[in-house]
């Protein structure tokens, strides 16, 4: 045993080692390797040349990339909606009403369903002759068919909705775990002081859920900026650049057009953006929880 390291710490590291090794090989190393790559015109198939900061200069003049960044930032708007809805759902399924387990399972099913399957099902539902149009025409909300995924004014929001629909159950479960860690005597004390259901949520539940809110918001922001599957499967960034998100554009530049050097530069820019937003989330959620940290 190494002197100075507590056995507990050593054990912890030992348990983390396999996972860390995987992360190091498949996550950390590619990220670090992306830095020198971003300074070249690397394309795998041809000779590589050093191009300095050209890729970064090109990125900020590339209107498609700027649009994709903007779309990714718009995508972040789903974060508060997802968090609010999943907290409400968690509160609902945390109650003692009969059949609540069935609801928990039902809300969680989209999470474990493959995104490809989810995307394909939604593409049928949202097709010109899909169920969504049929129902909205039937009840008179629409007067004519809408091509939800082929219309620039709706496509991005529809994709955001699909992302939200699939993610709700996941965050609900995390919040449910948080809710079950809140001591019941706190609620009882608040009730004795005359707090109603709304005040209980505002003054007891939400403050004590803050660590969970921080964690969920953080991964949700990262997920929103890096969204890829549903966009690529359903619209490939179209129509035009309406749903072009940064991940899809980076994928197209790198893996479809073999401009890996340029794609690495774009990836680094997006990573910096994600880092900055993550810091912002941290700053906004520094206090609270059952055990303040």
């Amino acid at each position, binding site marked *: 045993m190494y002197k100075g390291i507590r056995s507990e710490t050593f054990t912890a590291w030992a348990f983390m080692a396999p996972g860390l090794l995987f992360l190091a090989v498949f996550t950390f190393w590619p990220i*670090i*390797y992306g*830095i*020198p*790559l971003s*300074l*070249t*015109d*690397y*394309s*795998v*198939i*041809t*000779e*590589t*040349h*050093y191009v300095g900061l050209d890729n970064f200069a*090109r990125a900020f003049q590339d*209107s*498609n990339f700027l649009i994709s960044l903007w779309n990714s930032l718009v995508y972040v708007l789903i974060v508060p909606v997802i968090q609010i809805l999943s907290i409400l759902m968690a509160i609902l399924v945390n109650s003692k009403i009969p059949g609540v387990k069935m609801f928990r399972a039902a809300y969680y099913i989209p999470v474990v369903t493959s995104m490809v399957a989810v995307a394909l099902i939604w593409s049928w539902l949202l*097709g*010109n*002759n899909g169920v969504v149009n049929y129902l909205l025409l039937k009840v008179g909300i629409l007067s004519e068919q809408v*091509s939800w995924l*082929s*219309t*620039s004014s709706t496509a991005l929001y529809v994709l955001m909705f699909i992302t939200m629909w699939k993610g709700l159950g996941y965050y609900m479960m995390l919040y449910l775990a948080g809710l079950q860690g809140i001591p019941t005597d706190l609620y009882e004390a608040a009730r004795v002081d005359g707090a109603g259901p709304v005040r209980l949520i505002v003054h007891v539940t939400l403050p004590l859920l803050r660590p969970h809110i921080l964690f969920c918001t953080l991964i949700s922001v990262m997920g929103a900026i890096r969204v890829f599957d549903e966009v690529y499967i359903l619209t490939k*960034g*179209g*129509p*035009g*650049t*309406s749903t072009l998100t940064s991940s899809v554009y980076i994928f*197209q530049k790198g*893996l*479809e*057009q*073999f*401009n890996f050097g*340029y794609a690495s530069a774009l990836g680094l820019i997006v990573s910096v953006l994600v880092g900055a937003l993550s810091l912002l989330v941290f700053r906004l959620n520094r206090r609270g929880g059952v055990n303040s940290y």
Partner: protein
Amino acid sequence: MRTNRKGFMAALLTMFMLLAACGGNGNTQGAADTVSNGQSTAAAKDVTLEFWTIALQPTFNDYFNDLIAKYEENHPGVKVEWKDYPYDAISQRLLTSTASDKSPDVVNLNTEFASQLGSKGALLNLGEYLTDEQAKSYFEGIYNSTVLGGKAYALPWYTGTEVLFMNKKLVEKAGLDPANPPQTREELVEWARQVHEKTGAAGYAQQLVSKLFPIDGIPILNEDKTAAAFNTPEAEAMISQMRDLMKEGVVLKEDADFSKQIQYFSGEQTAFQLSGPTFINFIKTSAPDVYKNTIAVPLPTGKANLRLSNSMNLVVPQKSKNPKEAVEFAAFITNAENQTAFSKVANTLPSSRTSIQDPFFTDSDGSLEAEAKVASSQSLDKATDYMVGVPSASDINAALTRGLQEILMNGADIKETLNKVEKEINNIISQGS
């Protein structure tokens, strides 16, 4: 802190040097010997050729195993290892194998991807290996599809040209005579309009790709492929007409890929379908009743009076360790005899001139499949791929598709968008990426 920063910079520089050392230096062999057309020759040394195809296993295992066995028998010392990948996976596989210096020797690619790789210098110039006679044995338009700057980057293999499929029931309901089908795009538009007025179905669905330009005789790039050439009044008129047709409902207002087109035709939401004969197999399965009601006729031509082919090719990567043997094998697979045999097995069209004289391509038994085959094979001599000799074809295609979507689906201004796409494509060409 300072030491840390220095250490980090040193690590970065070391990595960069490693990376620079990884740069491919490709195959530096100069002018090569010409190759035989699969005649018996012995390799100077034992050679294993890695041959990659797209989505041909297991359906055509027997055909290829026999062909490879025959080739190996005639070429002592040459062994062929055949691997097959799905359409979506082949580009990634090719990249990873190239990166790890385990390049395959003969690869099946579509024209767009072959042009993209050729323009990046990743493929062998096959022109250095082929005799004139060999090069001329293919249909000129199809062979030239992957010629860039005088270098032939691919051998054409199996191909397909589009035909016009018509839903007879809808056409007759609209008061039109399927026995006298439309000959030109203008006539097709008129028919589609009438079908839409009388039956409520749309005329057809289409994918918004760059081939819409050459169909109407609008070149995508200039003669020497150094700049965009599509930003013309003719292009504006073509796109403007398409926008009007979409507004009217004559053409579906959607960028419909092949699977969506199948859905629309199967559901009788469109009366016409412009695609290759493979469409029949899908319609047969998805809508047997519609299949019974469908007829195939030659595709109405646009202003350019040409029909577009959609070809598969064989290429030899620059990093192949056996270039001469690889080209020889590719020439063998694509020679007239083997192309004819493959077309019979796979119901595709050949790209070699003499294959087309076989009765298989001229006689029809009246079935939809035979009608489509005869209709499409008779137009091969004027067929050309729409990405003829276009460098960085994938990038250019993506830019044009985005522009068309912006105009036709997002309501962007035609002129403004064409200007923007022209600038984007000129950038792509000047950067070579």
